[in-house]
């Protein structure tokens, strides 16, 4: 979907401080704009502030400071007007398990102000879009995890919103269901819907997004198109060594190799960020062998958003 130059969402100095002054500062004065028609991904590890940001944007949480203008309406001053423009798909399966998919959709459709034949038409369309027409009358508690996720998404689309917020919609589902959801997001965007997509999966952000905002500890640490973001990390490779039982001090040894910009230990993996991965590779393997460690596999990755996050924070996205 071609994006417009006009922002449909403008976030200004958005801040959320829970139970101040001692409580956590979940979001720290975020400012950014999301353009009409784009897929914007908010990428960050768990606890980075993605959900808190979305919750403030849809009126679930009151910002400590700042404001969000959505489709021309302030979320603080005109929350109901903002909510009419939004479709929100929460991270939790916020559906009624003892009701069928159709009963859930009819209930939420009515609350979105739909009625009569229009409601029935939209429910049928959403069931078709989510591929649940055949099972529409079954209680949701009998659905698979992926089907439940699709109902969860479908509810947010009932009233044809201009903007859809999807908060980690692929958490804890099988690869096929994930594929279906990613395809549905692209199709939705192709129909003209602006998408704000939060995830901690780098691959999803890379596949879907026109632009990406990387969030960590409540602050946006990088923002732009994928090309723009890759320029920040430079032409760096990521070397991934699978080595069990690595002592932490050994990471410093690897970090001292000439050409290595950063070294990181994540679970059973050692990650090295280097301008030319192939040059660094022999020295790294030699040091691992000399240390008596068991090298199980080696991978060399081209520059990715993961590498950018590593470059900016010194940590992996999954931390």
């Amino acid at each position, binding site marked *: 979907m071609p994006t417009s130059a006009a922002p449909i969402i403008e976030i200004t100095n958005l801040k959320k401080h829970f139970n101040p002054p001692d409580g956590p500062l979940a979001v720290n004065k975020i400012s950014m704009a999301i353009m009409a028609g784009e897929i914007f991904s908010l990428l960050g590890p768990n606890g980075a502030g993605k959900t808190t940001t979305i*919750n403030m944007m*849809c*009126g*679930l*949480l*009151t910002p400590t400071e700042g404001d969000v203008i959505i489709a021309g309406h302030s979320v603080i001053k005109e929350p*109901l*007007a903002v*909510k*009419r423009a*939004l479709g*929100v798909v*929460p*991270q*939790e*399966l*916020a*559906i*009624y398990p*003892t*009701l069928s998919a159709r*009963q859930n959709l009819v*209930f*939420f459709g*009515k*609350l*979105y*102000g739909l009625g009569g034949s229009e409601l029935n038409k939209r429910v049928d369309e959403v069931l078709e879009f989510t591929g649940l027409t055949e099972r529409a009358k079954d209680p949701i508690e009998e659905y698979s995890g992926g089907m439940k996720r699709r109902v969860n998404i479908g*509810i947010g689309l009932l009233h044809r919103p201009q903007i859809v917020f999807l908060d980690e919609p692929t958490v804890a589902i099988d690869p096929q269901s994930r594929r279906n959801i990613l395809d549905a997001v692209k199709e939705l965007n192709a129909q003209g819907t602006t998408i704000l997509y939060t995830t901690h999966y780098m691959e999803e952000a890379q596949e879907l997004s026109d632009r990406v905002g990387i969030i960590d500890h409540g602050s946006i640490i990088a923002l732009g198109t994928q090309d723009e973001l890759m320029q920040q990390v430079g032409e760096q490779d990521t070397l991934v060594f699978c080595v069990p039982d690595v002592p932490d001090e050994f990471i410093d040894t690897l970090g001292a190799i000439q050409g290595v910009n950063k070294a990181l230990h994540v679970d059973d993996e050692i990650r090295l960020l280097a301008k030319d991965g192939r040059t660094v590779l022999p020295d790294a393997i030699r040091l691992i062998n000399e240390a008596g460690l068991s090298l199980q596999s080696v991978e060399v990755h081209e520059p990715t958003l993961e590498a950018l996050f590593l470059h900016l924070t010194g940590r992996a996205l999954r931390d």
Partner: protein
Amino acid sequence: MKPVIIIALNDTLISVKERATFLTGLLMPVLMMVLLGVAQGGNDGATITIDVIDEDGSKLSTQFVDLLTDEMQGEQDAFRVCAYHSDTAEDCDLPDDIADTPGDWRSTADDRLEKTDTYGAIIIEDGFGDHLRAGDTTTVTFKNSGNLSAPTLAQQKIDAAISRMSGSVAIANLTVGIAEETFAAFDPNSPERAAAFDSVLDSAETAWQDRPITVNSQSTKEQVSRSGFNQSGPGTTTMFVLMMALSAASILVYERKAGTLQRLYTLPIAKWQIITGKLLSCYLVSALQFIILIGVGMLMGVEWGDNIVGLALVILIFPLTSTALGLALATVARTSAQASSLQLLLGLTLAPLGGAWWPLEIVPDFMKTIGHISPIAWAMDALQEMMFYDGTVIDILPMLGVLLGMAAVFFAFGVWNFKYE
């Protein structure tokens, strides 16, 4: 208002589809109504069984037993007198040969008392008649279980029988004594004197049959018996209606944890509409449960009274108070488990405190006062006023007023303390 109704109807649909609602909302209260009702005497009212052991076997002791039976069974069959020497004691569950084994009478009576088959045993000891004939005093032993108010009532009946017997004996002794001293009519120990004593005693007893003074007890209201079901019906109904309405707390806390409440907040409707819809559903389900349990009670013989308007007002107002309490509870519980525990704790505390398990008439005055912190006490007062005293709407207005006041306080606290975020 439309979103409120949509949410209320959806939640009601969910509740009705839930098997637990049927089990805890209908099946359990009906079972408890039956169990408590039967335990408290079913539709017959509580019958107090008193054993009578006549070890004397004299004409006077037999007369005394007849008097006791007359006094006790005149009380609307509240007492069942089981005289061991008589073959006519029906429904007493005594051994068939009990009349022929006087040596076992005392131990049988003690066993029955210990097993609470009886409330008491009256023992007329050997020599009872001789003492009376000689103008001496004698005693009758009354053993009792100390159970509730039954012994006091039984004691009153024994006293009445003793007064009657004492009066007749005194007349007989006095008359025969005058004849003996004034007219030297017969020797003190002669059969003639005994015959004269018996004759006067019989005449006195006959005279007692038509009591010179009787009480004409009149009531402007038809009395309904306090049968087991008439106590268990309203008690069980109000307790389970309260517990059903308190489930508002569990529902709100569960939906907050599950995320459905937050999803509703993201819709273009006001937060008060969402909460009101949820509470309206709990209210509707509780009121519906109230109506069904009243119907079930009627089938079991519970006499709810003729005041249909008053009953309807209780059905409308008591679930309102209970739902408001559920809202207040929802604001102090952090997890579903906490909400369920508090719901159970409150239900099982307020029910007995408010007189749902036993009549508040039998508890000390200070407990009656404390019991009225429970909404159940006020609902029970209103229901019992209509059931037992033919109460009008005016009569139950104070109780309904208190229930409405409680509802206002609980709502105010709930709204003030409710955390949307």
